[in-house]
């Protein structure tokens, strides 16, 4: 396995597979989030299930965290190796002439998304962990909706979230389709896959942004 990681192609597979895994997670995430706009009750139920189902908590959540860590650690490793592979940089380099901005700046879009993940963890996950395991509060299947909406009350947080979703979109725009190429898929379906991946890269972050803005504009009035 360590031999596999030494190979540039294996690193490609790891990036692609972890990325694809995170894409699948995004689908789940955005689906549940959309529920918060449509049906607060369903949202509460789903969130409660996710928060207390042992399979989700002790198997899927660690896998997810591992996926995130692998993806970003590998991203860093690749970036460092790739910088080193150039050695001396060009005095003049017209990267824009032959490759789109998004593909050349995955590290920056990725870093913004990573920073966002920090905030997002602080906002929700740390809070959850404290609620459940530190303060050892009793289960409350109805608290999630209110907590979520409340988070989006401050404008700064909403703006930060929306900016992050834009960067997520850019990251997905290149990354999603690219992971197919990395796994060796490049055939007559490729143009279709590319279109789908790009549509995904727009629609999913847009949905996330919409939810954030919606909750900001529709605070719960007591």
């Amino acid at each position, binding site marked *: 396995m360590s031999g596999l990681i030494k190979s540039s192609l294996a690193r*490609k597979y790891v990036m692609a597979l972890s990325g694809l895994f995170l894409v699948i997670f995004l689908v789940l995430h955005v689906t549940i989030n959309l529920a918060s706009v449509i049906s607060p009750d369903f949202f509460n139920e789903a969130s409660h299930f996710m928060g207390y189902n042992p399979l989700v908590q002790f198997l899927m959540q660690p896998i997810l965290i591992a996926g995130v860590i692998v993806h970003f650690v590998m991203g860093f490793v690749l970036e460092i190796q790739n910088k080193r592979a150039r*050695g001396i940089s060009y*005095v003049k380099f017209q990267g824009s*002439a*032959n490759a789109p901005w998004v*593909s050349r700046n995955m590290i920056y879009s990725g870093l913004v998304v990573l920073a966002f993940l920090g905030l997002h963890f602080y906002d929700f996950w740390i809070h959850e962990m404290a609620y459940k395991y530190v303060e050892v509060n009793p289960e409350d299947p109805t608290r999630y909706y209110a907590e979520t909406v409340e988070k989006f009350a401050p404008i700064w947080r909403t703006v930060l979230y929306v900016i992050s979703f834009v960067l997520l979109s850019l990251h997905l725009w290149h990354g999603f389709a690219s992971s197919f*190429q990395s796994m060796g898929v490049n055939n007559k379906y490729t143009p279709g896959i590319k279109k789908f991946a790009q549509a995904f890269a727009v629609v999913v972050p847009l949905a996330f942004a919409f939810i954030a803005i919606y909750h900001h504009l529709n605070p719960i009035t007591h």
Partner: protein
Amino acid sequence: MKIYLKIWRQKDANSKGGMVDYTMDGVESDMSFLEMLDVLNEELVAKGEEPVEFDHDCREGICGTCSLMINGRPHGPDSRITVCQLHMRSFNDGDTIVIEPWRAKAFPVIKDLIVDRTAFDRIQQAGGYISVNTSGLPVDANAIPIEKDAADASFNAATCIGCGACVAACKNASAMLFTSAKVSQFALLPQGQVEAADRVMNMVRQMDLEGFGNCTNTGACEVECPKGISLENIARMNREYLSATIKG
């Protein structure tokens, strides 16, 4: 035309290099880019200065020797050509042209604009061949029919001239396009199937050892390749490698 040049000058592999400015008068639009440099060199020799060294040989776009980064693009602004096929009519009077060598850790500078590309040779030596003896084979050339599409695709991959523009263009200095072109040429032919797994493993291992970067699918290599080698080849190599790894 009057042209301002900024050219990387470096005495040898161990010296520190830097950009040097030159001004050229009377550049004709019919000149090829390399002929413009020839004229510059004649002027330098006349002044007793050392001419700018650059790699070039066939000057018809097939040997893959010429290798200049011109205004931040390998082989200059035009597409599907090598530097030797670039003409000065692609530039305007008063233009400033920045000329640099290929930049990659695996392509160390030898002198001025000349780099050492023997890393490419070593990748080929690691497995870029079919292990058949050259002396008097009994098998007739037409004994194994090959589907025309496969033969054509193999040919397209085989047109790589090994110039290194893919590495120069890639923000990661990755040699995947070059390596995958050779892997593909053989993978697409029945004759190449026998050793396919070993070939891709060995060539990729050597490619990594040489210190090339990783592929992040930006596609810059395909755009800048003077022969239009397609990214499909990289995907094919990824497949071949994956299946070789799984099969062990």
